[in-house]
């Protein structure tokens, strides 16, 4: 893509992304309100007094007595100013809760994402290069095993092996509590805590990337331009890197974009298994407690992430593949 057209392209995409996010917010609002159960009665129940007047008072306080469209309008107005409401259960603003938990989730998913891409693509490239040999078979079997095993089971088994039996790695949490550590020590400590959950979350995608990379590389290797490269005397290693792998990366990028969005949703399970203090666990707790405001906040946050990652994928694609026309 020509650089001069990039700003206009970016602006156009941002406008589209904003429209999508807005639509998602509206959908979320109606979905939540379509679910049975009244938050006011739950709060009332938890505070121990459930008489009608107290309920009425609560409803008025949260705007639940207003017509639905007014509630939507108030919520949208709030979202635009990044005011996502107040969680009465946690006695904190939803935005602050999310802001508190977001770094942990981003750290976990980011690590899992990079791990999956790096290992998956390497495995796929190796398998494609040695197609039909025993190393290809080993990689294929490994990938399929990862692919077929449920996430939480992998997580539990890893905990059993590395935390319980070997006692190498901690089994839950994000950092050791109650110990004084230097800055570097703290980083190492978090790294140790991160290893198992990131591995658990990433393994499934390692399999997907390995399969995808292998298949596309084999497909690309049959194409005419690879033969052209061979005919001009390019050495095999360079053909693989510069001609085959680069072209095979296009579908991988597409999939990485989808995965990046899914990771945050998928992390709910892993965060719960490893007691990782991220958005996923927040969502899980909010769900159990019918904490509507927090749930809507989590939905909003994850949908923004998905849209953002899609946008990044598209931009990356436009940079990597010159054929993507800016129009």
């Amino acid at each position, binding site marked *: 893509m020509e650089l001069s057209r990039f700003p206009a392209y970016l602006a*156009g995409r941002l406008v589209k992304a904003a429209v999508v996010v807005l639509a998602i917010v509206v959908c979320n609002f109606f979905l939540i309100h379509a679910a049975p159960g009244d938050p006011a009665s739950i709060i009332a129940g938890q505070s121990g007094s459930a008489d009608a007047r107290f309920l009425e008072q609560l409803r008025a306080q949260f705007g639940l007595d207003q017509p639905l469209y007014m509630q939507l309008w108030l919520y949208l107005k709030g979202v635009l100013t990044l005011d996502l409401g107040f969680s009465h259960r946690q006695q904190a603003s939803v935005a602050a809760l999310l802001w508190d938990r977001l770094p942990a989730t981003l750290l976990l998913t980011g690590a899992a994402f990079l791990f999956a891409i790096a290992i998956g693509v390497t495995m796929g490239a190796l398998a494609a290069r040695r197609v039909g040999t025993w190393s290809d078979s080993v990689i294929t079997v490994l990938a399929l095993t990862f692919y077929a095993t449920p996430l939480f089971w992998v997580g539990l088994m890893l905990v059993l092996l590395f935390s319980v039996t070997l006692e190498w790695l901690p089994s839950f949490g994000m950092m050791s509590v109650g110990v004084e550590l230097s800055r570097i020590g703290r980083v190492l400590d978090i790294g140790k805590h991160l290893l198992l959950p990131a591995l658990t979350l990433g393994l499934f995608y390692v399999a997907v990337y390995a399969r995808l990379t292998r298949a596309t590389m084999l497909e690309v290797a049959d194409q005419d331009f690879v*033969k*052209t490269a*061979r005919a*001009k005397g390019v*050495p095999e290693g360079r053909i693989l890197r510069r*001609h085959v792998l680069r*072209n095979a990366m296009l579908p991988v990028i597409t999939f990485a974009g989808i995965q990046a969005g899914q990771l945050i949703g998928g992390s709910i399970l892993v965060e719960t298994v490893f007691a990782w203090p991220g958005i996923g666990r927040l969502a899980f707790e909010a769900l159990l407690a019918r904490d509507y405001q927090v749930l809507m906040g989590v939905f909003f946050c994850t949908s923004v992430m998905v849209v953002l990652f899609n946008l990044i994928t598209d931009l990356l694609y436009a940079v990597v593949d010159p054929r993507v026309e800016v129009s």
Partner: protein
Amino acid sequence: MTRLLTVENLSVALPRGADRPHAVEEVSLHLDAGEILCVVGESGSGKSITANTVMGLLPKGLPVTSGRITFEGEDLLGLSAEALRSRRGRRMAMVFQEPMTALNPLMKVGDQIAEALSVHGKGAEARARVPELLAAVNLPDPAAIARMHPFRLSGGQRQRVMIAMALALEPALLIADEPTTALDVTTQAQILRMMREIQQRRGMGVMFITHDFGVVAEIADRVAVMQRGRIVEQGTAREVLDAPQHPYTRALISAVPHGRTLDRAAARPAPVLQMKGVTKTYQRGGWFGARAVVRAVHDADFTLNKGETLGLVGESGSGKSTLARCVVRLVEPEQGEILFHGNDLRPLSRQGWLPYRKRIQMVFQDPYASLNPRRKVGDAITEGPITHGVGRDEARQRALELLRLVKLEPSAMERYPHEFSGGQRQRIGLARALAMQPELLIADEPVSALDVSVQAQVLDLLAEIRQRLGLTMLFITHDLRVAAQICDRIAVMQRGAIVELGPTAEVFGAPKHPYTRSLLDSIPGRGWTPPELAETA
């Protein structure tokens, strides 16, 4: 003359289970510096395998079983993979058939040429040499082209880039594997001229692989004819073209469309189809981007009379297929009248169209893609009539007659398309179209994907059927020789418009429009008239 390349008794095995044990068998040929050797044959004759063996580019499944290849005094088959690699691109280079896929889509063309230099240790020269090379293959503004990605270039331009890349290290041997087959006729003429010129200037030896005797006549010094993996005839171009000895060569040459026009009485004006002011434009973009508008068809009026064959001739992108597709509503034009026996088809609803569907039928270009691979041939032929209310038994009876008409066995009814060759499939496609008993047959490049001898059979069949059934035909082709052979009148299309329309003899004999003239001048081997050959030698 120095002997550049000698191939002696070369045999390459095919994998077990192929239709013959060897891809090439006992092939011997030689090439001198400064000479162009054309290797001619139909698809599957082993000509590409021979070329790839020389380059050391054979796929793993095809081992060389015997023979010797000597290039510049060295035995190529005895060289290590690395030694062979260092000669590829430097001493011997290759250009392929498909310019659209032969370049890496993600690399700038300048970088791809520079890569050829740098892998042979000449990377430092790349900056200066790349524009020089692009200029040498007559590309305008070489510096700008070098910075472009392949998708911005046309097929002809890409093939020039391929040639520039092949010439980068001034190889002694250039192997060109059907380098102009995928190109339009005018582009082909330019590329052939350029290759000849560069070859003469540099004294290169060129091994030129083709299936087209016109191209052979244009460019060859010597010719080797291959059939089923063997060389059946070898000699100077004059000998082979004008006095072929081997029956196969004779058959091939007599199958070349001769371009002599038919002398037929003009059809009486009884219009079957009239196109008036049909316009089709394609648009792209919208919302945030700039709009791009392409006028695919405009100013393309013609009348097709009963029993007549009108040829729509033009290069790719000229709108000939779009125009034909408008008639059967595979494309919906936004303006104009399509009068079939005086009734305008364009405004009709889907329902209103139904009665016309069976009266207008189409035969497509690609015999491999146009038949459903999961349906038996008999079902494919009878499906149309049955949906239009013909009884099952009657439809099968008719299908059997049609198979006989297109010279296929009745047993073909129960077989699947993949069991047939390209030419046979095209005949099935024809039978399928005829099963509807159409008044108007639209043939969209029906012989373009076929080998020359098969092409001649299908053309003869079309002529015969047309005569027998009194069909009216719209025949679309890019091949002027084919058009001359089968059409009563010719319409020449350029950029969506018909620029010349007239009786075939007139259009070919005294072309009025400059574009028609340039098309005719571009026919390869126009100076060569295929000799009249008796059936057997």
